[in-house]
């Protein structure tokens, strides 16, 4: 860990005023402190924002609003969330461990860095950590890595489960800097790696993520999050799927699907959604609809199973919503 200065902000204005080019906001610290110890992130200044009054969880006609500093555990257990957006609650409960969820914030979750092991080991080549140094994962051990949205520079997944649910629900993040506030759709907020994998999102230097807004979606009550991994809890996804269906009889009037563990960012699946609309929610239609779910995939040496596992995970999520997993 490199030396840094530390300060705590009590208002958003104070936080924004204190932020500089080489500073980092500290929320729950479960990503930041980890990466500072590994010397992957070495900010000159750490600004504690955990004290800011951004912990609200509320619902109105414009949707669900969650403050950036609400705890993962509080959001997962909130009755508004469990009742209206079970997919969010499930995505959170399938994340990390109870101890981590008690500590970690929603903003920090959306902004967490990749779990690529080379990114986390400064002795290896990593374009995301050290632009231009190369990508050790492409020739290394890459079972957990992405197959969609990858580039020759970077094949790391975005690790957040919550973000997959939020992208499926078309959520936006509220960003605030000294100039004011703006809302950005989460799906647009994340960037593909291209040849600049160190640029991960549209957050400007010093900008604060103030909260997340999920637009109203009455039928999100019928939603679920399926996460596939080796170990039962406490592991990042091999694949995951956030699914919501608007079911009229047994016909799919509308559907939302996004996948995790497979893309360099949370991966919305519009083609599969299209193939499902107006079809009955049955095993055969679902299986037909997922055939082309991963056509653009570029598997690596250790993750050739991901396209097939993704198709199966989608099928499982949808059949779960039909009550026949």
């Amino acid at each position, binding site marked *: 860990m490199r030396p840094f200065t530390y300060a705590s902000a009590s208002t958003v204005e104070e936080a924004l005023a204190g932020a500089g080019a080489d500073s980092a906001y500290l929320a729950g610290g479960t990503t930041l402190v980890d990466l500072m110890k590994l*010397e992957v992130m070495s900010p000159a200044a750490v600004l504690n924002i955990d004290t800011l009054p951004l912990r609200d969880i509320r619902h109105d006609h414009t949707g669900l609003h969650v403050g950036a500093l609400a705890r993962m555990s509080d959001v997962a257990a909130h009755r508004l969330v469990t009742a209206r957006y079970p997919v969010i609650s499930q995505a959170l409960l399938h994340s990390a461990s109870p101890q981590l969820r008690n500590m970690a914030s929603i903003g920090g979750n959306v902004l967490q860095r990749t779990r690529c092991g080379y990114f986390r080991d400064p002795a290896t080549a990593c374009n995301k950590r050290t632009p231009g140094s190369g990508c050790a994962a492409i*020739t*290394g*051990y890459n079972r957990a890595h992405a197959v969609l949205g990858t580039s020759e520079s970077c094949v790391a997944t975005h690790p957040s489960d919550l973000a997959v649910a939020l992208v499926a629900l078309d959520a936006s993040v509220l960003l605030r800097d000294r100039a004011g506030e703006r809302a950005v759709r989460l799906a647009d907020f994340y960037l593909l790696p291209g040849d600049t994998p160190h640029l991960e999102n549209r957050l400007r230097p010093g900008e604060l993520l103030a909260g997340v807004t999920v637009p109203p979606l009455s039928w999100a009550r019928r939603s679920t999050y399926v996460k596939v991994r080796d170990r039962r809890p406490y592991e990042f996804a*091999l694949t995951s799927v956030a699914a919501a269906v608007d079911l009229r009889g047994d016909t799919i009037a509308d559907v939302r699907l996004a996948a995790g563990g497979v893309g360099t960012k949370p991966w919305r699946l519009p083609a599969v959604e299209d193939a499902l609309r107006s079809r009955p929610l049955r095993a055969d239609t679902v299986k037909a609809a997922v055939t082309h779910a991963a056509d653009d995939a570029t598997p690596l040496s250790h993750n050739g199973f991901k396209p097939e596992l993704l198709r*199966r995970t989608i099928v499982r999520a949808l*059949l779960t919503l039909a009550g026949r997993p």
Partner: protein
Amino acid sequence: MTNSPIGSTLNRVDGPDKVTGAARYAGDESPTGLVHGHLVLATIGNGTIRSMDTGAARDHTGVLEIYTPDNPLPLHGVPPGVAFYFSETRRPLSDHEVRYHGQIVGLVIAETPEQARDAAALITVDYERRPANASFRDNVDDAVVPEPTPLPMGLPITILADGVPSIDAALAASPVTVTATYTHPARHHNALEPHAAVATWDGDRLTIHSTTQAPAAHAIELAQAFAVPADHVHVVNPHVGGGFGGKAFTWGPTYLAAAAARRLGRPVKVVPTREQLHTTTGHRSAAHQTVTLGSSADGTLNAIRHLSVTQAIGEDPGTRLTMKAYATENLHVSLRVTTGLNVPTTTILRAPGEETGSFAIECAMDELAIELGLDPIELRTRNHLTHTLSPDPATRLPYSNKHLIECYRLGARRFGWDTRNPAPRSTLATGGWLVGTGMAGAVLNASRAFTAVRVSFRPDGTAAVATSTADLGTGMRTVLAIMGTDSLGIPVDRIRPLIGDSRLPVGPDAVYGAQGSAATATVAPVVRDAAADAVEELINHAVTEPRSPLHGRDGVRYTAGDLTDGATTIGFGDLLTTTGGTDVGATTTSGPVTPPSYAFASHAAHFCEVRVHRLTGEIRVSRMTTVVDAGTIVNEKTARNQIVGGVVWGIGPALFESAHVEPDTGRIANANFADYLVPVNADVPDVDVVFLDHPDTNFSPLGARGLGELGTVGSAAAVANAVHHATGIRVRDLPITPEKLLTTPTGQA
């Protein structure tokens, strides 16, 4: 008279200390003047260090010294005894060669651990790189027969029935054969407590708080490295947070802590990080085993051929397991070892050889049962081994007190085996989970080593039971307390178990720690002998000490803490208070079982139920029953704990554990607890453990054989066999991960 607590479910005597944090582990020690060391590890897999730039690190606040191959610390000779075979023979920092990724290339000493760590990160190393040869699999074909060693491992053994020319001929003559290759990745001990060492020198005398399974052996290994007499090294390890073989021998970080302390004249603490532990403190070799079973149509085994390749003689499945598993007229086991791999040093790990071997043999038996259309229990029962296998029929010994068939039967009843539909992929539960069940047998050689125990009486009314072994979490302290109570007839809370110190009594020519599942079997019977000798000393004291109220009396007896001649009765505490005696007792030494007219082994049967998702292939162990035949059970609670732990150590390799060694660099891609997966609570069902409790009095008067590693033997095979039953897919390459079960078309159930 206090009832003997043998076989009871006594709570751990050190439980409250551990739960409240009062128990002090090696790394908790902070003597005055302490400084801290942080290791620097190589980031290439093969090459030579051209130079190291330590300038920035030297300038870092608090840094006192930096040791590198250019500024090495003196360490003499090579590890003595078995440590030579099971630990690193090259001394750390002794040359500029890098043989594996993660090898120690430096030690930074600073006033605080953080300063040492941060300075270490500033060191850069210029390497002359050579390609690393780190893939075990790529080296299997080139493996060689190991050099003979004094250890009875590694050599090929062939047993043939009269007139049978070769094992191949025996197999060719078998009406039914199955053959398959089973592979294990390298795995790591990952004890919760890291290898911590706090070393303090006083002249040429070393006191080291160090986490070790064998304090006396540790002292000898350290004494050798520092060229001082063994009694100049005092090892203290009252609590050990897991060992599993990884703390049986002395490793580089500990040697360096002691060497730096000597050089600097200040106490030094070194605690490797989790990642560093993966490469500096030993691991279990990867394994490649090909098993061929030949049987008659009714399932009688005619021939077993077990060809193993590992990286280490200690990981010898054929000798350690297959020789003890099933009856057969013809058998061939062999071990070849890979050489020159650029990977970290291998060592023993919980049930070395037995764990790997049992996976291969117990899966192969399942495959044969299916081939024959026979129930797996029936196949095993038909091939029950009653005598040891040996090339010389005259040396075959009967197994003493072997109740493996009872384990199968009882387990089958508890588990509900009889209602099983043997057809694979025949049961689908709600939620889309395929359900399957599997079983496996287990055998673990039972041994006892030389040891010495001191039992002594104290004026405060307590009795000490002391021996130089360690409690790795196994419950050794509790075993000593139970045996003390059993032998002296006083309550458990008046027994003071003393362990975890190299100065406590050790056996004459072996320095025995807690390993090989033999600690209880070794130590417990000797407590009885030592207690009897101590009582004799106490009576002698009572009748010869002038101030004793029993001075000069005849017929003085000891019962339940009191001495009496019929007329006068006095408790030993009062007696010693009166006489001024401080520590009256005896040190008694045992030998191993001699001469053996029996073979001794503990046995078990495992039954496992798994659920595998029909679409996505996740595997969840939903039920487990293990029936154990290990003779007398000294404490049911800690014994159960050991078996459950062992079963968890079978679920781990079956489903999760694997070091992902990069073939071209030798770097372990997952050397941390987020990526090196071990089972967590939710992955482990409530394990139903039953003990048969048939005392093996041929083994020792107490009748307790070892069981620490037994749960680990065979349990991975039970899981794999259940996965096969659930899915119809036989996975022979561990761990069994979801992608290995995606071989049916999407959605087919």
